[in-house]
């Protein structure tokens, strides 16, 4: 909806001026790392790999940021949650 409005505004205001009213920042779509490298097998025991998909606070990085595809983001989520159960990864960073 918002995007639609922006486009409409852009058409009205930006006619002939070369600049649209608002533009979304151009971001390059990142390729899914786990798709690109088929040798990477996601496992709840592989902490070195899992740590690349969690933030410093122990939260799962959204796929908007990490660039994972939907399928691999689901596998990351599952693996992180399993690792948390076994106290390999923290649920939150505030726990003692």
């Amino acid at each position, binding site marked *: 909806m918002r995007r639609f409005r922006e486009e409409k505004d852009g058409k009205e205001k930006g006619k002939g001026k070369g600049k649209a009213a608002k533009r979304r920042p151009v971001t390059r779509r990142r390729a899914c790392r786990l798709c690109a490298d088929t040798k990477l097998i996601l*496992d*709840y025991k*592989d*902490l*070195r790999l899992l740590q690349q998909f969690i933030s*410093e606070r122990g939260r799962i990085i959204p796929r908007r940021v990490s660039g994972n595809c939907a399928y691999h983001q689901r596998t990351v989520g599952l693996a992180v949650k399993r690792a948390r159960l*076994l106290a*390999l990864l923290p649920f939150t960073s505030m*726990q*003692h």
Partner: protein
Amino acid sequence: MMEYETTIVAQPDWSADQSRQFCERLTQIVERTGGVVFLNRELGRRRLAYRIGKQTRGCYCYLNYGSNGEAVAELERVLRLDEAVLRYLTVQVGSVVSVETRRAKVLEDEARLAHLFGTGSEVTFGMDESLPAAGGT
């Protein structure tokens, strides 16, 4: 027959001998209930990401086996009753086509496990430092 793997977090005060005995006991349980154990490893001791029952460290054991499900039920029953066990997690890995082919792959798997947890069965996993400290920022 399905393939399962169970990871167990036990209390850290065990000696190497005791944890080996524990692993042996689990293997016997699986075999008694008609399962086949493919891999049985102590993964050593490491710091927990959060405290479980006042423990900050845990002794990790890993068991990979094939079973029709009876072994899982019996294994989990025993683990639930054992007070030394802090946590356990059983995951279904896949369906076993043939026990022999799976057995042949065990060595390969073991190498992978060693890569994940470090080689030694004692004290460190080689990744202790890279873990975010419990109670940190």
